[in-house]
């Protein structure tokens, strides 16, 4: 394994560092330009817009008194809990739907219908049914990630190359073996893509979910800041949401690359 993957990597490996360091430089330049434009806009006079430095100072303040960390943890906890529950349920249900026509027939109308409803539109219903505690917030995030993962898993199972299934079958594989040794690995790339989309939509649903009378959380903090016209705090919240979302997405991307490294990439 080692010897050959090293062999197959050489041409790409030789090219990659140069290209990515070049891309990184461009990324940095873009960020610097963005900050300069922002500073200009703030100083030249867009009403109430804080400069990057003011935002940084605010961030320092919120970090020092622990607010930012507490809020971030509260938000992360909700997102991860909803996301994990959603994905854990979505994968077996997606497999069921892909593998058994009966399960597909029974479940597909619901999945397809709820998929067309933006998760945010469920919030009023969730509040009425579940009160204003943690449950409705986690539920909405759960729903968002469940729906995108379930469709991806289901699609992955349906799209498994029939010749691969036949190849296993003629070697004497039972349905069970085919499921575990062919369908599961073959649909893994789809599932991981679904999870990434799911995490994205879960994170995106968070702020709105935290508008439901939360006591802490990034969305709640921004909501509060809005009442006091505290734009700096809003910016800190936005940036924190963006950074955390990016980090989580990259982690999943890394897992995806590792698990599906066998795929031919064009």
């Amino acid at each position, binding site marked *: 394994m080692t010897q050959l993957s090293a062999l197959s990597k050489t041409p790409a490996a030789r090219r990659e560092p140069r290209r990515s360091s070049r891309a990184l430089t461009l990324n940095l330049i873009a960020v610097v330009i963005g900050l300069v434009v922002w500073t200009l806009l703030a100083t030249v006079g867009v009403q109430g817009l804080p400069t990057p430095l003011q935002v940084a100072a605010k961030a320092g303040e919120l970090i020092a008194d622990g607010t930012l960390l507490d809020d971030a943890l509260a938000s992360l906890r909700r997102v991860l809990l909803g996301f994990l529950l959603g994905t854990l349920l979505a994968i077996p249900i997606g497999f069921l739907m892909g593998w058994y026509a009966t399960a597909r027939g029974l479940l597909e109308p619901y999945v397809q219908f709820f998929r067309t409803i933006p998760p945010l539109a469920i919030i009023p219903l969730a509040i009425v049914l579940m009160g204003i505690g943690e449950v409705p917030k986690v539920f909405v995030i759960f729903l968002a990630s469940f729906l995108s993962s379930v469709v991806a898993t289901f699609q992955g199972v349906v799209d498994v190359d029939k010749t*691969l299934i036949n190849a296993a079958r*003629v070697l*004497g594989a039972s349905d069970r073996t085919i499921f575990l040794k062919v369908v599961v690995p073959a649909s893994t790339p789809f599932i991981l893509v679904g999870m990434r989309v799911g995490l994205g939509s879960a994170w995106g649903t968070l702020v709105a979910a935290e508008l439901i009378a939360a006591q802490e959380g990034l969305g709640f903090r921004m909501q509060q800041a809005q009442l006091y016209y505290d734009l700096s705090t809003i910016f800190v919240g936005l940036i924190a949401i963006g950074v955390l979302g990016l980090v989580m997405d990259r982690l999943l991307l890394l897992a995806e690359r590792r698990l*599906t490294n*066998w795929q031919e990439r064009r």
Partner: protein
Amino acid sequence: MSTKISFKNVVKTYPMKEGTFTALDHVSLDIADREFVTVVGPSGCGKSTLMSMAAGLVEPTSGEVLVDGVPVPGPGPDRGVIFQQYALFPWLTVRKNVEFGLKLMELPADERRRRAEHAIELVGLSDFADALPKTLSGGMKQRCAIARAYAVNPQVLLMDEPFGALDALTRVQLQDQLLDTWSQEQRTVMFITHDVDEAVYLARRVVVMAARPGRIQQIVDVDLPYPRTEEMRLSPEFARIRNEVWHGVYHQPQAA
């Protein structure tokens, strides 16, 4: 010699928007135990369909397919299949692909290892045993698929254009290897090809099929002794048989 595979009045139709499409129209063919039969014919004449029936992957619309005198119950490791599309498991290395069938046989690990090693060596992939399929060329993928089928040592080998993607040299090597293993282990082989030369070189009988509807046009006996040699390819007898097959494939009377 007893009959190993027997197609009896096999019809296969597929429903179409209007009416049905007849892929195979009353095909009857007996393949003897340990016989080497090749099947040639224009694209779409039902070669793969016929083979899939022997493999147990496709059921005839009417008629019967018997293996050892019993209707095919479904796919099984007694009949190894090499697919037209390589059908390797892309997440498994060459070795793991080859071991897939051996694992299902529940062989002890060292025996499994040994047989996989042997099959991989036979197709000349030893240096790539731990490579993933995505790093292999088309010909190497096909050789891996061949090794995977060889490894389980089936009594019947069903091969669907297995050498189609190979360069001329590898092709000839694998043809000779195939004949070698066939004469040693005496399997029954049904081998589909587009290549008339290949069909004649390998087979005791060449089945020529015609399209629309798919049917057997003629069966050409190849009265050349085994082992076949490179000199035989140049013999007048070989040329005569090849012409006969060629004529059968490319000068087919149009079906009504």
